[in-house]
């Protein structure tokens, strides 16, 4: 396992409530691993805690990266080990140019321009149009998210955590993103993909379902998705859209059984 969470519990800043409760799962090297769950279930909190942001300290449990206990490491130390996070809503910063931003995490800065261009191409941004831009308010939401991805990719980390890379994007763009994820995977990076969209999740090899801060299941992605539908009571949706034509059909009986287990029909 490249990343492993063991019994992670994350309290709120004031310590009064628990946001994520006793969660354990592992992420295999080279895989796309989706974390799904409804709004407010604790996905972003989990991502920030894995990355080591201040104020996100587990009260219990351990996090391992490539076998190393990173639970008490700082954000910078974790990034140096080869992991990074692309934010759900990346910041807008006046004066910071797109190339400078993309170059921030590059270890080897020789042939910088070529590398920046390559990173922009991976996320399907025409390099000539962006080399002189800054990451301020003038970029559209989708452009800013792509630049964020490009900067993360340019680091060549072993693990890249994407927090809702799909939020605020339309369907046509989604196709494009699936494409980008595959390119990232081909560069031998492991992706931890946080999303609550099943169509995005379908690129994932594995998945983890988080429900109200609790870990429900970690398995091959379709099984996780099925469990999500069962908990949410989305049987019709599940049968109609999810498990057709992709070689991962479950039979009716199996689907019914899972729904019964979750107390919905």
């Amino acid at each position, binding site marked *: 396992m490249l990343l492993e969470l063991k019994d992670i519990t994350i309290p709120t800043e004031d310590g009064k409530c628990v946001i994520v409760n006793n969660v354990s799962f592992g992420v295999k090297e080279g895989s796309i691993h989706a974390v799904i769950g409804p709004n407010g279930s604790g996905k972003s909190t989990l991502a920030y805690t894995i*990355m080591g*942001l*201040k104020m996100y300290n587990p009260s219990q449990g351990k996090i391992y990266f490539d076998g190393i206990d990173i639970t008490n490491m700082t*954000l*910078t130390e974790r*990034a*140096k080990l080869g992991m*990074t*996070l692309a*934010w759900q809503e*990346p*910041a807008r*910063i*006046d*004066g*910071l*140019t797109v190339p*400078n931003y993309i170059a*921030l*995490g590059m*270890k080897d800065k020789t042939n910088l321009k070529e590398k920046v261009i390559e990173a922009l191409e991976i996320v399907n941004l025409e390099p000539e149009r962006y080399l002189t831009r*800054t990451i301020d308010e003038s970029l559209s939401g989708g452009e800013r998210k792509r630049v964020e991805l490009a*900067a*993360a990719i340019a*680091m060549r980390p072993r693990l890249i955590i994407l927090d809702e890379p799909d939020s605020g994007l339309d369907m046509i763009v989604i196709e494009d993103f699936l494409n980008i994820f595959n390119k990232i995977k081909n560069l031998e990076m492991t992706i931890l993909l946080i999303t609550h969209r099943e169509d995005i999740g379908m690129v994932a090899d594995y998945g983890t379902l988080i429900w109200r801060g609790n870990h429900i299941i970690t398995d091959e992605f379709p099984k996780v998705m099925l469990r999500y539908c069962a908990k949410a009571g989305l049987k019709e949706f599940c049968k109609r859209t999810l498990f057709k034509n992709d070689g991962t059909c479950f039979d009716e009986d199996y689907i019914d059984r899972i729904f019964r287990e979750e107390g919905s029909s």
Partner: protein
Amino acid sequence: MTDSDYPEEILQSLEDYNIDIRDFLPGHGGGAKLLLDFNKIKGVEQIEGIILKGREIPNGIVADVVIKEGTKLEEPVHLCFGVSKETGIQEIFPRIIAEDNTEVKVQAHCSFPKANGLIHKMFGHFYIGKNCNFNYSETHYHGENSGALVAPVGYMYVGENSVFENNFNLTKGTPGKVKIMLDIYAMENSVIRSNIRAFGKNIKDSVRIRDAIYLEGKNARSVLKMKAAARDGGEVLMYGITEGNAPNCNGHVECSEIVLGKGSICRARPFIRATDPMSSVSHEASLGRFPQKWLDEIMAKGLNEEEATEILIEAMLREE
């Protein structure tokens, strides 16, 4: 004039800004230029469409720049006010007139690489006519000893339908004592963008900049951005004023200042005043440290907090 006539220290002094003054020497590049070494005029180069004249006075010079009506210059007009001595008084009286329908960029470089008790004063008058596009950029370098006392004053009149962009940069080296006062008067339909950037780096650095924009004409618009950082005891005050005195005028003042290390002080005094019921003026100011999220996003790329702060300061003070 050959390159070697001009003090080497001044030629090299703006390297940190990525500016090579050699490019602006007479005989290099196509723009008009006026070069000063302390209180002596070292070179003047005219081009068609403009009048550039310098007159030496006891403690400095009077420099007249007239851009003739309809002139559109591709290459910037370059004014270099250098002093390679440690001490002395340099007083400059620039009088700049852009006649109607002109487009020009003026780059002024004030470079005092060895300043140690040096006094530089400037009394500038700018008159910008109608339908002009006037870009003025002034870049300062006061050496590394906080040894300069610099006190420029500028009055700028911006005529109807004109765009005036002002950039003041004092971000490399140590400023010393700096006191700047600018008054910009904006007439009907004019657009003012004024960007002030300064960095105080030790206890001997004290920078006070007062930039006032008076929106006097209908539909006049302005954005005043004042950005600063202070470290190791340095002190910066940004006093940004905008008055809305005409119908449908719109102005905004923004101050962002970063404080680094103990004893450093940043102050911001955005002052807005509206005297016309149809005017609109606003301000925002943020002082202290960068937002944690900005730092996190950069640190997630493997940099530590200090490095991330450096990167953000560089970006903040970068000329756009």
